[in-house]
């Protein structure tokens, strides 16, 4: 097929009561079935609307607040897909697996591929070096069932995020599966910020579409779900199907169906506690679609021009825990350069009108990010400061008044992996209103 209809569901998870001690398997199953009841209705809806595949969020069946002990009753032993198992037809082949059987039947009865995120447990010998004290490895796991209900993929999340209830697999798993509508890859939430498996699936396994369940907490100004995930799809030039959990108090919202050129559908809702089903037709093989976005040489333009005059009053400010070099956009139009170590960022811009009540800055950061200092970031950003006080530059701002007639942002990046982000007032994306030129400039299109 040249195209297929994709579905993602932003689910407001019914969470378990907080408990210090593990509940019974029956009570755990009762709660998971309450969430699967909701997913069942959505999966039916998506299938009736012609969707070939649906992604549901990370932690959608039981939430995220657990210890190793209290999550145990929610776990099932999930076999390797190589065993060619249809849980819906053979529910007792691998012991007690009621959740896998029900999910498999949902896929089979609605003739749709279903991705769900559930918990896997694998027995180990506690005298083994890494084996946990309870004799089980516990994994945050994605499973995919095909239209016959067969388990076709199983992925154990590698980059955990304060998830003490789960273990880290020995090494990142590179999980793909083929369909008549393209080759799919899978990973989860925090994995997207790292090379393996995320980049390797695209670069070495040539997947067309990534299935991405997540429980993503939004962090302005750079790491809000819709902003970063749509940019990742554009930068990596693949489809990215994102199903996020919905939990307003934890800033969890932001799902989407993102194509390499532009977001197809997205959802962001900090007002209600409602779930949301998104559907869209996408190219099965974006690499073959025309025009396929060309490979970008991200530093070509920025290294080819003479830096613009660096303004005397550049200053430093924080975004989260990272120290950026900033310079203010004083005029309503101009050319600016700001550098930090070997990264120089260039901005040409023209505002429709300079809003006296607003201040914008151009910022540069290159280095190991945050307190963990694990990931090496290189960021060029033009952002609106929270107030006209320059000490608030880098703090989250959610609304703006200033419109730009023209902008062109570029940087002397040392990496080929750059994700272009454009976030508009009230946390909106800007589909079709900007593009990336092959010399690395991020420019407005209108």
């Amino acid at each position, binding site marked *: 097929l040249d195209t297929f209809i994709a579905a993602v569901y932003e689910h407001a998870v019914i969470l378990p009561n907080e408990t210090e001690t593990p509940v019974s398997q029956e009570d755990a199953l009762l709660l998971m079935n309450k969430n699967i009841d909701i997913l069942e209705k959505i999966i039916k809806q998506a299938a009736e609307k012609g969707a070939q595949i649906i992604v549901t969020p990370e932690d959608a069946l039981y939430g995220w607040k657990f210890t190793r002990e209290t999550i145990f009753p929610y776990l099932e032993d999930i076999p390797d897909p190589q065993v060619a198992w249809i849980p819906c037809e053979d529910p007792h082949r691998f012991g007690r697996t009621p959740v896998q059987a029900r999910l498999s039947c949902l896929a089979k009865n609605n003739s749709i591929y279903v991705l769900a995120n559930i918990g896997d447990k694998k027995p180990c010998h506690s005298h083994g070096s890494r084996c946990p004290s309870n004799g089980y490895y516990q994994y945050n796991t994605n499973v995919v069932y095909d239209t016959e209900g067969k388990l076709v993929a199983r992925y154990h999340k590698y980059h955990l995020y304060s998830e003490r209830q789960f273990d880290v697999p020995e090494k990142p798993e590179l999980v793909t599966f083929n369909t008549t509508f393209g080759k799919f890859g899978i990973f989860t939430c925090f994995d997207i910020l790292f090379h393996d498996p995320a*980049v390797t699936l695209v670069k070495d396994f040539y997947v067309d579409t990534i299935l991405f369940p997540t429980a993503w907490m939004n962090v302005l100004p750079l790491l809000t779900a819709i902003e970063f995930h749509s940019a990742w799809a554009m930068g990596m030039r693949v489809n990215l199907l994102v199903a996020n959990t919905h939990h307003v108090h934890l800033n969890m919202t932001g799902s989407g169906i993102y194509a390499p050129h532009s977001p197809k559908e997205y959802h962001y809702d900090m007002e209600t506690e409602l779930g949301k089903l998104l559907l869209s037709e996408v190219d099965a093989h974006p690499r073959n679609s025309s025009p396929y976005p060309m490979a970008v040489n991200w530093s070509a333009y920025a290294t080819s021009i003479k830096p613009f005059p660096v303004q005397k009053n550049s200053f430093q400010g924080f975004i989260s825990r990272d120290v950026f070099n900033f310079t203010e956009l004083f005029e309503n139009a101009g050319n600016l350069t700001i550098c930090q170590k070997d990264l120089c960022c260039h901005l040409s811009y023209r505002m429709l009108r300079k809003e006296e009540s607003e201040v914008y800055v151009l910022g540069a950061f290159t280095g190991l990010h945050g307190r963990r200092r694990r990931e*090496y970031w290189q960021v060029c950003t033009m952002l609106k400061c929270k107030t006209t006080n320059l000490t608030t530059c880098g703090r989250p701002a959610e609304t703006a008044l*200033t419109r730009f007639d023209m902008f062109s942002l570029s940087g002397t990046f040392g990496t080929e992996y750059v994700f272009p982000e454009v*976030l508009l007032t009230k946390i909106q994306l800007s589909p079709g209103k900007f593009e990336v030129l092959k010399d690395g400039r*991020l420019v407005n299109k209108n």
Partner: protein
Amino acid sequence: GSSEPILTLSLFGRWYAKDSHSIPGGTSNLS
């Protein structure tokens, strides 16, 4: 016409080769 008011324009680069590989897959604290 001109676009909606802009909050942020960014080029977000990840230089994986320069990552520090001290902690394996697990992350013990919020970023």
